[in-house]
């Protein structure tokens, strides 16, 4: 017998490798540094691609003058209002369609025929109906949020385990309580998938609507400085949008963890 031995190693250790925290900021930092150097070396004209520092310093002017705040407030009001309305109505209608076979049979074809329409195409019509104030912008966002939330809620309801519903009924639940205590929590993970999807749609519609018909708002601001060819301020607006999207997503993520502690 030879004395040589061969230790068996974990071949899938890479699956649970721990990554240090700084890794997540590494990519962005490198990108920004690269960007700054390219601009400093005058490889591209500043009109096409201004340096990050130039964007930030012009952005600072926008903030200091209070102009930015006006735009942000206008945008936030629209998106928060539209999103809240669209999501709430979407969840409620989704629950009803999922629970009632009659409602499902009657309304699902209607939903599926309106769903594929790019909602921004409806803006002129909605302006005709609601006038040119804030209402049409809020409405178009609500509409864009409504459909993905509704469809996800509906499929979430359909995927709730039938035995859980049977269990609830056996232990004395009314129909309303079955919806509230079993179907809603059971569908919640899928509902959140819809809410996240809708966040992207909401931002897209916000900017489009503001570019088409608004004086204030990040979208209007980006368009305005684009027309004036002030690229720094345009880019600053774009950065604000990216930040807004990020915050939106984080917020939903936080809410999801709060509301679904059993996962």
């Amino acid at each position, binding site marked *: 017998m030879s004395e040589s031995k061969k230790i068996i190693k974990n071949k899938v250790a890479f699956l649970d490798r721990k990554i240090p925290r700084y890794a997540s900021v590494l990519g962005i930092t490198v990108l920004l540094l690269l960007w700054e150097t390219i601009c400093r070396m005058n490889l591209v004209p500043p009109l096409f691609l201004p340096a990050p520092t130039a964007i930030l310093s012009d952005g600072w002017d926008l903030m200091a003058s209070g102009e930015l705040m006006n735009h942000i407030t206008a945008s936030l009001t629209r998106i928060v209002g539209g999103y809240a309305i669209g999501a709430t109505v979407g969840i409620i209608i989704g629950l009803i369609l999922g629970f009632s076979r009659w409602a499902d049979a009657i309304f699902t074809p209607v939903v599926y025929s309106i769903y594929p329409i790019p909602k921004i195409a409806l803006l002129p019509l909605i302006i005709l109906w609601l006038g040119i104030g804030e209402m049409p912008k809020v409405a178009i966002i609500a509409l864009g949020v409504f459909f993905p939330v509704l469809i996800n809620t509906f499929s979430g309801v359909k995927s709730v385990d039938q*035995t859980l519903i049977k269990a*609830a009924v*056996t*232990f*004395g639940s009314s129909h309303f309580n079955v919806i509230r*205590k079993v179907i809603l*929590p059971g569908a*919640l993970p899928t509902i959140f998938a819809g809410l996240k999807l809708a966040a992207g749609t909401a931002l897209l519609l916000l900017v489009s609507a503001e570019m088409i018909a608004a004086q204030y708002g990040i979208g209007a601001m980006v368009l305005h400085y684009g027309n004036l060819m002030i690229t720094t301020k345009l880019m600053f607006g774009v950065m604000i949008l990216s930040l807004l999207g990020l915050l939106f997503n984080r917020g939903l993520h936080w809410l999801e963890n709060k509301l*679904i502690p*059993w996962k």
Partner: protein
Amino acid sequence: MRIVVENVDKKFVDNNKREVTALENINFTINEEEIVVLVGPSGCGKSTLLNIVGGLLSPTNGQVYFEGTNDIEPNLGIVFQEIALFPWRTVFENVIYGLEERGVPKKEREEKGKYYIDMVGLTGFENAYPKQLSGGMKQRAGIARALCIEPHLLLMDEPFSALDAQTRTIMQEELLTIWNRTRLSTLYVTHNIQEAVYLGDRVIVLSRHPGKIKSIINIDLPKIGRDSEQYRDQFEKYADEIWGLIRHDAQEALKEA
């Protein structure tokens, strides 16, 4: 209070639009404090029958009723094969679900919840979510949930079939201890013959295609301690008798699957 199952038939229409008779002419009663066990090969209609008794399925013919209710609304407690705990509720919240739906005051809910959680041996896990429990613990919580409403009839559909053999043996013993304290009339479904003889006062053997009562066997052994040496011979005799009744059907079932 007795539960009477009278002339129950159940026909299903299968995917090819053919009529399948799942149950035919089922008649039996469950007396007070009695454990009735349904055994039979896979697909003989045990679950169907239990669901009909539990009010989760309508019979095609016949009826199921409580007799001698003295105008009390009878309660049913069901322990599901799939366990069916609400994943978003903690053990305690699951156990008191039925009380909550009946509008029982908070203080009483807490007392009863605590009492039954203790009875099934889950004290200390009140605030755990189902996914944090082992299979045996989950089923204990399921049993506590059914006991908590203090039902007039307890229905159990193969409650231990998903558990490993050791846990299963322990749970069977615990179930008898619990029965000894609660004295609930129980309808218990299993395909395990040893389990049927161990738990049942009466064992109903179902045949297949259509599901009919083949035989009803009274188990004349004391309720507690049937697994002791002294009863071994009689225990085996009952088990053999039941196996003799089921064997042919079980083989047929296997061929079809």
